[in-house]
């Protein structure tokens, strides 16, 4: 037996999912995409039931990657019951989706969640009458307090035993069949019903309606013959999507007539809303929140305090010497010794880097992120910053991956998947690869230039201008439209700590699985490069470039190691600083910041954006870094200041 939870974002689905499944859930990415689908098991009555929590959808025609995944899951997987979870105060706008799901022929339970918030707005509902009119179970719940959840479970058990009774036979309920479309659409639906095979997971009525609304993916799932025929049946009108939406909304309004009781008209804007949305108070608040969550908590506590402890106290002092000792006593083969232990070994570099450096940053970040997400603040942050990001072809959502880049570029590249369009993801990936220094690199560069205020200023200005220019150029060059910004602003809510911890744990766990192999792979590659002498050859190739930048030949080594670990490069520079002039330091710091990202970030780029795009990014970043370094050196050598 399998049940699925569907519904819009921010309706408390994951809380209901957690309640049903208890502790055991597996969150994984839907194959080939970047969207999380959670699965768990629940004991309903005496039945063991698989529960699937699908990504939020607003309608059955997918507009985002999340919606496409949910639609695919509904199409591909065999399930016995669908729980449509709605935010009760938004019932008017959500019921059309319930009707669309009923038209598809799915066995359905409607869960009217967040009833407490609706009541606060003076909204009550006669759910018994709604149940009668819809012909499906309707359950009022408050996920946060547990109200109604036992009744929801009973309704699920009852619906499941019913669905077992008439095994596999799905019919469209009379209510859904009763939705009366305009004459041309109704005629089209009749014809399509006669033409389409009836073995699809969605009813032919639903399929025909989706195709009518311009759903190309759905059309592609039909047989070639049907694809050809359905095209000839389509009514001739350019407002079909609107007509379908209006018809469903009218049907839903007439079902709700007399059932929704509102004592007040609409929710008044609370002081918190104006505080967070008005730029005059919202921007300082945003700066404060970003400062506390990202800088203090992730950047200082995670990336410095915890990293220092793990890296120095645990790894440098205990783990590494121990591994070195064991490996040295086991083998005398220098190659194997260096592969596993010592400066660049799989355990002493790869594992250490993943555990001591990345793990604390990732955990603190995902915790902050879950907190912002569950409090409903995230969309407000995106709203305030949207104008700024529009300049470089991004939307306000980009604030997350970009600010995260100051922590760990590899993780930030992964997080670019939260952006809506491929175009935005490419722009963000490029800016991350080119101009955002990660915490490790930033630390060393700040230390390096701290005593030279002017140099630090020139470094920050140059890197900032490059980031902006890269965005502007890509926005101009890439095909497609700049992102539209249409975002629901959910009410601010106190995050449930249990949920925040759970989300953090699942994401950290999943991220760790992804990243661990990358760091191990990186240290194997360094080992290979050293063993085969490839690294030495690359240093020789790069040496002439150093002269162009006005740097000594030994700087080539620094740049190359910077590819393996960004901070290694900067740290190498730190060791050389006594031999370099301030101008040389400035040029080197700028070039190193812009220079290709570390190898883990590059591998992540390949995984997320594909090899071709990643190679293009590197092919842009590499010359850009050296060109800008060269230009900066030329400009600085003209002035006498440095």
């Amino acid at each position, binding site marked *: 037996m399998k049940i699925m939870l569907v519904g819009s974002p921010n309706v408390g689905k994951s809380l209901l999912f957690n309640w049903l499944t208890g502790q055991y859930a597996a969150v994984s990415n839907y194959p080939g995409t970047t969207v999380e689908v959670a699965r768990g098991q629940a004991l309903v009555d005496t039945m063991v039931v698989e529960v699937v929590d699908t990504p939020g959808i607003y309608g059955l*025609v997918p507009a985002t990657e999340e919606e496409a995944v949910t639609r695919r899951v509904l199409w591909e997987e065999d399930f016995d019951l669908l729980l449509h979870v709605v935010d009760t105060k*938004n019932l008017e706008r959500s019921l059309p989706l319930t009707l669309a799901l009923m038209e598809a022929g799915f066995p359905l339970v409607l869960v009217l969640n967040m009833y407490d918030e609706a009541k606060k707005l003076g909204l009550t509902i006669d759910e018994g009458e709604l149940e009668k009119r819809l012909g499906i179970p309707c359950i009022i719940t408050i996920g946060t307090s547990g109200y109604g959840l036992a009744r929801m479970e009973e309704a699920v058990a009852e619906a499941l035993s019913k669905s077992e009774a008439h095994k596999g036979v799905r019919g469209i309920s009379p209510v859904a069949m009763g939705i009366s479309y305009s004459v041309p659409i109704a005629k089209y639906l009749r014809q399509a019903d006669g033409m389409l095979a009836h073995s699809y997971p969605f009813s032919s009525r639903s399929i025909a309606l989706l195709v009518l609304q311009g759903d190309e993916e759905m059309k592609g799932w039909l047989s070639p013959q049907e694809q050809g025929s359905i095209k000839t049946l389509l009514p001739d009108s*350019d407002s079909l999507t*609107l007509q379908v939406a209006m018809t469903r909304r009218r049907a839903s309004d007439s079902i709700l007539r007399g059932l929704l009781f509102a004592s007040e008209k609409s929710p008044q804007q609370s002081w918190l809303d104006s505080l967070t949305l008005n730029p005059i108070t919202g921007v300082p608040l945003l700066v404060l929140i970003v400062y506390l969550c990202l800088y203090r908590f992730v950047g200082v506590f995670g990336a410095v305090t915890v990293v220092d402890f793990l890296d120095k106290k645990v790894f440098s002092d205990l783990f590494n010497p121990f591994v070195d000792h064991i490996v040295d006593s086991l083998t005398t083969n220098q190659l194997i010794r260096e592969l596993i232990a010592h400066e660049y070994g799989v355990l002493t570099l790869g594992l250490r880097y993943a555990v001591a450096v990345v793990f604390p940053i990732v955990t603190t970040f995902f915790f902050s992120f879950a907190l912002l997400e569950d409090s409903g603040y995230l969309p407000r942050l995106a709203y305030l910053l*949207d104008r700024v990001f529009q300049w470089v072809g991004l939307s306000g959502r980009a604030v997350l991956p970009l600010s995260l880049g100051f922590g760990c570029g590899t993780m930030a590249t992964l997080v670019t998947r939260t952006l809506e369009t491929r175009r935005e993801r490419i722009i963000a990936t490029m800016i991350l690869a080119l101009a955002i220094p990660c915490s490790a690199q930033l630390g060393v560069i700040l230390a390096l230039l701290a005593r030279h205020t002017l140099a630090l200023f020139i470094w920050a200005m140059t890197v900032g201008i490059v980031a902006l220019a890269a965005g502007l150029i890509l926005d101009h060059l890439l095909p497609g439209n700049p992102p*539209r*910004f249409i975002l629901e602003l959910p009410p601010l809510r106190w995050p449930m700590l249990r949920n925040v911890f759970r989300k953090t744990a699942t994401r950290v766990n999943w991220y760790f699985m992804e990243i661990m192999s990358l760091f191990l792979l990186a240290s194997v590659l360094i080992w290979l490069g050293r063993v085969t002498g490839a690294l030495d050859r690359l240093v020789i190739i790069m040496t002439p470039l150093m002269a162009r930048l006005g740097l000594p030949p030994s700087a080539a080594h620094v740049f190359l190691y910077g590819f393996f670990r960004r901070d290694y490069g900067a740290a190498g520079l730190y060791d050389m600083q006594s031999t370099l002039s301030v101008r040389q330091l400035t040029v080197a710091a700028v070039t190193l910041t812009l220079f290709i990202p570390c190898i883990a970030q590059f591998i992540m780029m390949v995984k997320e954006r594909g090899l071709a795009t990643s190679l293009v990014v590197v092919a842009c970043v590499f010359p850009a870094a050296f060109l800008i370094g060269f230009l900066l050196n030329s400009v600085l050598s003209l002035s006498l200041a440095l």
Partner: protein
Amino acid sequence: MLDEGIISRSKRIISLSELPLGQSAVVVRLPQDQALLARLAAYGLLPGVELQVERQTPAPVILCGATRVALDRKTARAIMVLF
């Protein structure tokens, strides 16, 4: 609830971006683009629906039923309301 066909002579059709703060108006026309229209409809924005503008700066925020939606200006300009 949809509020269709109530057109009084004193009212006029303006774009959403011109609607004064705090005033209610009824949607009469949405952008032609199918994908955009589908997204607006998903938030409950359909012809006949009453909405209010809560903010116009830095970008429009509207309240439609209990749903609060932020829009970019370009989209707001393409939505016509009866006010």
